[in-house]
């Protein structure tokens, strides 16, 4: 609870400090707040909080780990956006404030043990994002993305709410433990419950951006600024996926046979549609959007794995999010008026730091050991191996297509010939690159500690 409060208050302070138009000061305040939130999340169960514990928000060990990851990724996204928002002085304070509010929502979504808290978290997470996407008012792409995301997102939320209502109607509770008990005792296997669960699933698939609810992805990624895009691809996805996995593995575990077919369908279609569409893109942002759809497909294997689903998801997401943040940072450095992939030609050969980060990020995303991406995929696939073997093989074929996609980008950016411009990398960008590189290379070692 303390971590949430610290982050929320930092967001408020950030709003006012931002008005002073001193970007370094704002950044310092926000960073201190986030690090404070991180530390308080680290010791959340080790001390008696002055705020009496609220039953709707608990942090078990796994939830704590997800919370830590979310805060750390937000820190990276904030640092990454610094250069951009330093120049957009009009929006500096909005940006920092909104991203911190959104993080508060993400933490609610990670720590919920009550449907009420869940819905609250989802809304607090989403609404700042609608604003952040459209924050560049002059940019028509951004406005389009924002409106599109807002409308579809609101519908998804409404459907989610309807689903929660139906579940409440059939089980008589908002508490996820009580819902689980009601389902396990078999008292409430009614069509109403099934429809409710189905509606929640549809809304979840929308939030994580899986097929067939993925259409908003490419447009929104194209319209948003780089930092917001990185935040959406990492933290928003992390929180939504965690809530998805937690609800369906824990609360609705009695309904797995009913749900698994649909989830498998979403997985396979996301994987193939995501990677195959990504192959055809010429714009980096759209490519990242489709690749994120495909990676969501992988992550959804966690829904079918009640035992280790959450841990696998954590490892997978640290690999995915770190590589994505690294790639988007590079895009931020490289991007001129357009975000065509052709801009990337030769940058890796001319700029060693970019080259190393890029190679390792892309290899991790293609699932080459010993990088975190490999261990994430390995964990997800190995637990699905015995029950869903054909789908695992399909996923492996899809990941081969993915490997082609990433290796092609790698080859393009490592080209020797061509101009291969030298880029100026600011210190903060270099720190972000190195930190995300650390996550990509060593993130899986967390498994060994536990």
């Amino acid at each position, binding site marked *: 609870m303390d971590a949430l409060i610290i982050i929320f208050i930092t967001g408020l302070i950030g709003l006012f400090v931002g008005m002073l138009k001193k970007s370094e000061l704002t950044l310092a305040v926000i960073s201190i707040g986030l690090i404070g939130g991180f530390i308080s999340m680290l010791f959340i169960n080790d001390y008696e909080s002055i705020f009496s514990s609220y039953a709707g928000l608990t942090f078990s060990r796994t939830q704590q780990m997800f919370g830590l990851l979310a805060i750390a990724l937000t820190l990276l996204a904030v640092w990454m956006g610094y250069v951009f928002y330093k120049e957009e002085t009009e929006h500096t304070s909005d940006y920092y404030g909104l991203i911190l509010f959104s993080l508060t929502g993400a933490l609610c979504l990670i720590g919920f043990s009550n449907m009420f808290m869940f819905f609250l978290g989802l809304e607090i997470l989403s609404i700042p994002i609608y604003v952040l996407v459209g924050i560049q008012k002059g940019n028509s792409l951004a406005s389009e993305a924002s409106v599109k995301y807002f409308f579809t997102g609101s519908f998804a939320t409404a459907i989610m709410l309807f689903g929660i209502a139906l579940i409440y109607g059939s089980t008589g509770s908002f508490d996820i433990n009580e819902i689980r008990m009601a389902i396990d005792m078999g008292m409430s296997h009614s069509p109403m419950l099934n429809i409710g669960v189905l509606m929640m699933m549809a809304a979840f698939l929308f939030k994580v951006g899986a097929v067939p609810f993925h259409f908003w992805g490419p447009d929104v990624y194209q319209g948003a600024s780089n930092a917001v895009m990185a935040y959406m691809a990492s933290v928003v996805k992390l929180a939504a996926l965690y809530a998805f996995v937690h609800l369906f593995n824990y609360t609705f575990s009695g309904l797995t046979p009913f749900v698994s077919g649909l989830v498998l369908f979403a997985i396979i279609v996301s994987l193939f549609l995501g990677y195959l569409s990504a192959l055809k893109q010429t714009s980096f942002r759209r490519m990242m959007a489709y690749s994120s759809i495909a990676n969501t497909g992988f992550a959804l294997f966690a829904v079918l794995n009640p035992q280790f689903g959450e841990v696998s998801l954590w490892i997978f997401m640290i690999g995915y999010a770190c590589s994505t943040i690294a790639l988007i940072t590079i895009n931020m450095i490289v991007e001129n008026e357009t975000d065509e992939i052709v801009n990337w030609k030769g940058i890796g050969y001319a700029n060693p730091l970019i080259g190393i980060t890029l190679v390792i990020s892309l290899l991790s995303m293609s699932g080459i050991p010993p990088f975190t991406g490999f261990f994430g995929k390995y964990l997800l696939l190995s637990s699905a191996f015995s029950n869903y073997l054909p789908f695992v093989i399909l996923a492996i074929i899809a990941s081969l297509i993915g490997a082609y996609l990433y290796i*092609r980008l790698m080859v393009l950016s490592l080209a020797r010939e061509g101009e291969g411009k030298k880029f100026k990398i600011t210190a903060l960008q270099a720190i972000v690159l190195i930190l995300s590189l650390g996550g990509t290379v060593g993130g899986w070692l967390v*498994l060994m500690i536990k």
Partner: protein
Amino acid sequence: MELIILPLILGIIAFFLPTNWVRPFGLLASLSVLAVSFVHLMNFDPENYVLISNPAEIFPLGLTFKMGYDGLALTMVLLTNAVISIILLANWNRDISSNGRFTGLTLLMQCALLGLFTSLDGILFYTFWELTLIPIFLILYWFGKQDNNRALFKFFLYTLLGSLMMLLSFIGLAYFSPSFSYFQLVQANFDGKAVEAALIMGGILFAFAVKIPLFPFHTWQAPTYTNAPMAGTMLLSALMLKMALYGMIKWMIPIGFEGLVYLKWPVITLGGIGIVYGAIIAMKQKDLKTLFAYASISHLGLIAAGIMLFTVSAIEASMVQIINHSIVAIALFLCAGIIEQRLQTRNIEDLGGIAKVAPHFGFWFAVMTFISVSVPFTAGFIGEFVLIKELFTAHWVIGLTAATTLVFGAVYMLRAYQGSMFGPSKVTVFADLTWNEYAVFGILTVAAVGFGLYPQVIIDFIKPSIKFTQELMAGDLTFTK
């Protein structure tokens, strides 16, 4: 452990060195790693298993981080280090060797290869297997012919597909074994489920078959070789392919032994087809490098078929032949590289009469040709002879098919030699060998003849390891180190 970390550190240093330092640094670095492995050799007793990393506990995922070597692995370690030094020496008079990125990548490749040969854990093995792919990919991309992306992607995706099949097999193996420790994998209990064992073995075999390459999986090889720089081809054929053969001996067959009955004859048949097919295609080639690439398919088909028999003498002969093939591969690709460097062409039809203008090169090329057609007193003679004998014992048809390699090998090699060195004098200017090329040819000849006269040194070295593996498979040994 220093064996693996040393080339890693040296490789990273090489990236940042100024250009004129890179060349001596690379050679010294590889020699120092070779020296370290000689220290290991001096303290090694073939009867023992040396564990260089041996944590007691089993980590999550069944990872054990066990690393170590027996005679078999140490042979490969020494081979790797020697070959890397020779490759760097052979490239001494070329621009490529003063490029820090090339030297760095070669040393990183060495690190990955050493890790692969010393790993005693399934996931570690897979990790190093994949890691070898990255440096070679970058070497081929940066220093190969430009506009070769198509061949490059084919190579990468093909081998990646193979690796993924191997990964599937390892995931499946996790259901039969408590951890990924090599010793427990070998003793994995299939309870007579031969089909499951064969499927798991098949997945691993797929990865190896692509790398070797066995007959229907070879399509990536020729375009990759032709587009690669000389050093890249040498690394590929002298070391990368050996990974797969070593993997067959050490990992694939011991792990899936129950399933060997299903796969033994299919693979031997493919090997037999490869022997004849590779040789016939090689006879028709005009490009020297393509010719040697197909010759390599022919030679390796024989080794793969021999390994599948899994008798003691077949494995010994395979090891001799593996070493011999590394020697031959470096020698022949160096010859092709020398011709290409001096004349910018490798087409036999454009060559002719080189022996007149460059007699020293003519002489050494002849020596290398004889080594590659396995004349008596070279290592190849021992290896091929024993392998053919073993195959003949298994079945006379395959024995006869394999024996054709002796004839066909002489045909395509002598044709290549004659076409390029003698005949009408189309080449009038040809700079003769430089000192480093003399050195490489000399070392290779000494090695080939040395192992040809006294192959017992290799056999004594690996015999205890084979015995040990067999005891481990039979479960006679309660080896829980």
